[in-house]
């Protein structure tokens, strides 16, 4: 399972940050507003092969099945991972040493995903995720053609399940 960001949906409400801080004591996700016109939640992408794990000499960062695992006891605080991460998603926290998203292993779904009001953070496998984006784009095209040929749209059931 993977955690994806749908940047189009982010509403800059900080819910993910506070939820992450609540669970981990320090937030491992941060919202970056871009010129007051958009906002991007930045967090570990759990790359594969991950640059941070590749440079880690102490074995604290390792490539897991579908995540990059951090073990604090092994960390030597050399800081190479911080330099290697292209997203700035690995960093030294204020109190607790190295901070990196661990996808909340004790929960079924990470806290930030559950709390995100706008569904900008999505938990799923990658294929499913691209499918959502694709269906949304296809929906826009289809709707245009449906409308231009006079066919009525079928309204959604209560609760608005979207295309998902």
């Amino acid at each position, binding site marked *: 399972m993977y955690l994806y960001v749908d940047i189009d949906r982010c509403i800059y409400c900080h819910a993910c940050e506070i939820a992450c801080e609540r669970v981990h004591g320090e937030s491992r996700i941060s919202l970056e507003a871009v010129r007051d*016109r958009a906002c991007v939640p930045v967090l570990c992408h759990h790359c594969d092969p991950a640059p941070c794990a590749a440079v880690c000499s102490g074995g604290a960062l390792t490539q897991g099945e579908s995540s990059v695992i951090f073990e604090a006891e092994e960390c030597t605080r050399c800081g190479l991972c911080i330099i290697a991460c292209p997203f700035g998603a690995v960093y030294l926290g204020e109190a607790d040493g190295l901070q990196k998203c661990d996808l909340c292993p004790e929960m079924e779904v990470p806290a930030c995903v559950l709390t995100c*009001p*706008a569904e900008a953070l999505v938990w799923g496998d990658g294929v499913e995720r691209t499918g959502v984006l694709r269906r949304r784009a296809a929906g826009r095209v289809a709707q245009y053609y449906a409308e231009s040929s006079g066919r009525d749209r079928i309204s959604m059931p209560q609760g608005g399940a979207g295309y998902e």
Partner: protein
Amino acid sequence: MADERLVPTVCPYCALGCGFYIKINEGGPMIEYMLDHPTNEGSLCAKGNASMEIINHPDRLRHPLKKTEAGWSRISWDEALATVAGKIGETVRDHGPDALGFLGSAKSTNEENYLFQKMARTLGSKNVDCCARRCHSPTIPAFKRALGASCMTNPISDLANSDCIFVIGSNFAENHPIVARWALRAKDRGAKIVVADPRITPTTWHADLHLQIKLGTDVALLNGMMNVIIDEGLWDRKFVADRTVGFEALVDKVAGYTPDKVSGIIGSTPEAIVRAARIYAGSDSSAIVYSMGITQHSHGTNNVTACADLALLTGQLGRSGAGLYPLRGQNNVQGACDMGVLADFYPGSVSVHDPRAVQLIEEAWGTGPLPMGMGMTAETMPVAAASGNLRFLYIIGEDLVNSDSSSSRGRRELESLDFMVVQDIFMTDTAEMADLVLPAAAWAEKEGTFTSSERRVQWSPKALDPPGEARSDLSTILDLARLLGLDFDYAGPEEVLAEIGRVVPSYAGISMARAEERGGVIWPCPFQDHPGTPILHQEGFTAPGGKARIVPVDYLPPAEEATLDYPLLLTTGREALHHNAGSMTRRSFSLMKRAPELFVEMNPLDADRWSIIADDLVEVETRRGAAWARARVTTRQEEGVIFMPFHFPETNMLTSDVIDPEARIPEFKVAACRIGSMKGVI
């Protein structure tokens, strides 16, 4: 695990009524998401996630405190309640019951609010009010007149079924983030989002069309849209003919509001006005979402009326996906209004001017004649205190001095009270001014029902014990009422809810058991097995004759305009990380870390002109006072407008005290001001 249990609860912050669980185990209370809640589906905003930080906060009030010359001294509950009862008795004896003032709390349960106003009115005082005065008081008379029911018409999740969401004066992405969940789902289905807002906000990021209107020009825009709709024949003829009255007068009124003329007033292009009108009227189901950008004006009632007119004209009511969505601010502000904690309404929206309806309440309560006529409002109580008409004030859970407009004046005026008692969970600035402070239980430390903005009545059980000697407002009110010799004999909130059902018809079918179900009951629920009414006005309107009333209104400019002395306009609003006067969120560590201080947002052009650079401390001055704030230079505002959030005490020292003549809400949203280096130049 020794003792772990999950207790469902209702979020204590805004009025959306989101549910979550409190997980209680040895490590202290934790939040657990409630994935099957109909409003939020488990998601929570930043404040909701931080709500547990309030529960165990070291600042919590733990004991009754009495002000002495040496500072606060701890007293017993018996002494505290005897003092309050004694003061009430003295005041009634010396000055009559109208010298008593009661300010209820939109954070207390329905049961507590109901008993609070019952106590006040049984004592003979008509001065009962709550903070709804400062957020949605214009919605109440305007909707009551137009539709017959003063509340949100559809549930929030129903926004997902809209084809057009017209947002005016609301930044729901930051302030009611759960609304964005449903609005974005509608957008996934191809709905259009149209936003009218003087600022660029995260809500406008998601808009298909953003009308960046000038402050306080909402009626002009709405009338302009109605002009286009009538002109182009986009109105719903059948709906208007069958279900409304007053259409002809509207046609006359809006005839003058041509897009060209309106464009000159609001500062958007005529094309944008026409497009907004076409999208709204042309969509199958369109919803209007509004909030304090509409209500907090000296003509707030007109603003709300114009919104209702637009919905009535196009028949966008009484169906799934359509409707009017006044987004309310406090977790139980709808409930407090339903319970009659308002100077102009008894429980069940019974007007204080309606002798027959009040008589029914007299019979239900078994009391003598109840006071009639409009009482003092939250805004006029301080004024009456200064003039000596108000001697005693009892405030529950409300930071009056920080949430009142032009607050330094209010602060001075409250000092002339003979006696003030404040019941709260924290020592707020208002409590600091009191003679006696009573510690209260927070939401999760007591039980009772809360009514959300979408009229959802939910039972929130007790999850934790209050700290120290703090007690629920209910038990405090009951004990006090007994000392005052009132016949308040209730075993608990369940019995109070049963009485509410007898007095308020729309709550008649709501029992504790039903409110305890997931998602509670949406009122009106007039009898026991009634399923609740998520969508109002499906059949007819509760207004006289079963028809809605279209009331044409004229555009009036805001009370203050930019002048040579005060060349800028100050508007206020919220930010994502704080809540209202901030007495809770400003004590929340994780929120304060991210939003630590008051800021003022200004356009780079204005910043240049007054030689201000980002992060400067800037002095903002209006006719009523001055305050310092950290500058944020951003194009979120147009030139000439600056923005400050009202979560910090300083902001409301600046705001205007001009009030709406009908709803008596102050114009928080527009105040002429000057900044920084301006001072001393002129």
